[in-house]
């Protein structure tokens, strides 16, 4: 079974991990991760969807303009 690297919750069926690099600023005000360490996380869909707009905004892009490598 796979677990989200950010919230540590198990992934559901057909859910996959995606990589996302977070800074401390990205994580401020968010409940997960509990221990806010910057770095590259393998995230489940819920956490990826939570952080994707934050990372995109930091890079000055819209989510639709982001490719997979833009998150790492």
């Amino acid at each position, binding site marked *: 079974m*796979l*677990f*989200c*690297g950010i919230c*540590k919750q198990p992934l559901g069926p057909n859910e996959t*991990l995606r*990589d996302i*690099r*977070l800074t401390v600023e990205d994580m401020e005000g968010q409940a997960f991760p509990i221990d806010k*360490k*910057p*770095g*590259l*996380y*393998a*995230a*489940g869909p819920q956490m990826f969807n939570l952080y994707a707009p934050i990372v995109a905004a930091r*890079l000055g892009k819209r989510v639709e303009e982001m*490719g997979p*490598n*833009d998150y*790492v």
Partner: protein
Amino acid sequence: MARNYAVTGSRSVASPTQTLLGITGATSCRTQLNDLIVGSSATPADNALRFTVQRYTAAGTSTTVTPQALDSADPASTTTAGVNHTVEPTYTTGAVVLDIAMNQRATQRWVATPGREIKVPATAANGLGVQPIHPSFTGTVNATVHFEE
């Protein structure tokens, strides 16, 4: 004449990812990665590991290792190397040059096609980092890097 060197390293996988091995170029040479071997020495299990090689512009904090010359008559390398990073390098967003997905049981090797080595710019503190990615696996992973300068 080009000289070739080897660096090896190992560490436990962590989330968020901590870099396993980094090679940092210098202004006086063009470091070129041409061979990479990644695997895991942990107790065999079916974990889906990923290894990425990504460019960085600052080397972070790590344990310095001395690259070993493949020809023992060669001098020490100009390129520096570090393993077991405690402070991550400053990775360049999107600059992933290798992404290797593998089963923990199956060691993987990547060899550059001649002429298509991964080159590091001749800029201080620029380099390449090998990162093991897994959200929960904490076993030991290992890497060997060969580079030319």
